[in-house]
């Protein structure tokens, strides 16, 4: 597999004017500005293979959108090198952007007041897509996303989910080699979310499109990506498969037990009590100990009368929260 995106030592600093407070401060702010330098990206190195679906995750303000903006040629980095699809994005912007598609989850690229199909026709001209190719691509997108009835309606009449479907189609009309999705499932209902996920997978399969997506929805990550890049405070903290991370936390179980009657001072050797309320107690396995259902049941039933119990692994959200905590984000 060939590398399609290569980031080498990318740094990005922002100068942010510091504001003084006070009655006449706006004057002094105007004449002598003090700047605070913020390191948005600090020596970012990674590469992405052609055909990968990569989840780019991190807490708010970690530098995700800065990276996306650099990758899509909108921003120039302070230092470092970046080669995507053979181009330096910000240097040969016009050539480079022909081969990328960008979906900003909360901002539309389509026209508000005219039928969606008209917006598509405009995009056809912008990307100089030939009639045949346009017809063919639109047909594929149409089938995959069920757009047929949406296309003749103005964007403002569509629901959020329908809009997102149209956005996705719009950003793929020119069959880009790389697709950037900035929070594509934000605010969507469950059905549409699944449809969007299926579609992203489908596109990746049929066109071998490399997809980079940022999201806060960990289920997106789990369902779609074969690789994640975790960024925090401008640094890359983890770069690898998501399964690896999941494996690290696989031993950790949360066990909830319901007793027949309320006990006081519930305690169990080898387990940590997380919460205890009347007749329900929640335990957690201690670090690096494997969980055995049988021995746990034996031990607890010797001490207490239990009605019911459930064993849960950490959810993906919890794993991520754990990761953030570990890296002190």
């Amino acid at each position, binding site marked *: 597999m060939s590398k399609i995106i290569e980031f080498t030592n990318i740094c990005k600093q922002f100068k942010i004017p510091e504001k003084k407070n006070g009655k006449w401060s706006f004057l002094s702010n105007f004449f002598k500005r003090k700047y605070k330098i913020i390191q948005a990206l600090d020596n970012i190195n990674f590469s992405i293979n052609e055909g990968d679906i990569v989840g780019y995750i991190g807490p708010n303000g970690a530098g995700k959108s800065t990276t996306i903006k650099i990758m899509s040629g909108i921003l120039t980095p302070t230092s470092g090198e970046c080669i995507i699809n053979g181009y330096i994005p910000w240097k040969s912007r016009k050539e480079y952007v022909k081969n990328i598609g*960008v979906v900003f989850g909360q901002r539309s690229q389509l026209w508000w007041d005219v039928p969606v199909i008209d917006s598509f026709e405009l995009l056809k001209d912008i990307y100089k897509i030939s009639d045949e190719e346009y017809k063919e691509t639109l047909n594929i997108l149409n089938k995959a996303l069920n757009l047929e009835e949406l296309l003749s309606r103005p964007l403002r009449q569509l629901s959020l989910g329908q809009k997102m479907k149209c956005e996705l189609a719009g950003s793929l009309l020119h069959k880009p080699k790389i697709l950037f999705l900035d929070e594509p499932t934000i605010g969507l209902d469950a059905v549409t979310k699944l449809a969007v996920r299926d579609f992203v997978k489908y596109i990746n399969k049929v066109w071998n499109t490399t997809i980079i997506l940022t999201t806060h929805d960990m289920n997106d990550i789990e369902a779609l990506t074969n690789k994640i890049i975790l960024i925090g405070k401008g640094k890359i903290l983890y770069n690898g498969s998501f399964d690896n991370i999941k494996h690290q936390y696989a031993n950790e179980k949360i066990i909830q037990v319901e007793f027949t009657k309320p006990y006081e001072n519930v305690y169990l050797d080898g387990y940590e009590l997380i919460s205890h309320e009347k007749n329900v107690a929640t335990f957690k396995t201690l670090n690096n100990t494997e969980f055995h259902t049988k021995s746990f049941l034996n031990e607890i039933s010797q001490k207490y009368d239990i009605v019911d119990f459930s064993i849960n692994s950490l959810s993906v959200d919890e794993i991520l929260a754990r990761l953030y905590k570990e890296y002190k984000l």
Partner: protein
Amino acid sequence: MLYNKYLKMHLKSSLEYKANTIFLSMAQALIFIGEILGVWLLFLKFEAVGEWGFYDSLLMSGVVMTSFSLMECFARGYDEFPNLIKNGTLDRLLVRPVNIHYQLLGAKIEFSKFLRIILGITVSIIAIINMNINWNILKIIVLISMYLSGCIIIFGLMILCAGISIYTIENLEFTNIITNGSKELAYYPINIYKKWLTRIFTFIIPIACFNYLPLSFLLETGSIPLWLCGISPFLGMLFIIPCLIFFNFSLKKYQGTGT
């Protein structure tokens, strides 16, 4: 052509809001009529302002209004540049394989300015009929160049203000002063103002190049050599070059800072 498509899209969009477009046009036309009344009242009181009579000022109002409205109609994208930055549209434009200026021209077309363009032309015609000018081919060329120069200089001003807004982000009243202030100023001969003001509006923001100077050529008045007055509209058009350079430089800066 791509621009035709933009044009069609904007037309379709504004047809969705017919009433809005009509009322907006009328309101703006009324403002213009108010301004013309202001000029008329002034000349009721003072017979002449500088070297100009009422119809001379009226022609200038027509020139300014026509070119100003034309540019507000077709170069609205530059006018609304601060909004484009704020709502992320600029980022959107930057990921398209089309020149940014082409896209900005297509980004917004304001059809509600049409009525003002028509009014501007009407007022100009009324003024020309009533002015005492010995027309010849050169004068007609200069007259047409006044409109062209007006359009280009105002376009330059809009590009300049758009460039400034990259640094300030907010749509500062300051930029309004530049564009609207220059507009009002241009209704009267530029040499009636304070000398420093005259100089600024001749050499820095060359309002005089589509206002006082070419009209002096048409009227054969003033102390400045007539040939210089005649070519001044063409010299004024050069104003757009530094504006474009500044804008492109600022855009590079935007890509550096991402404010």
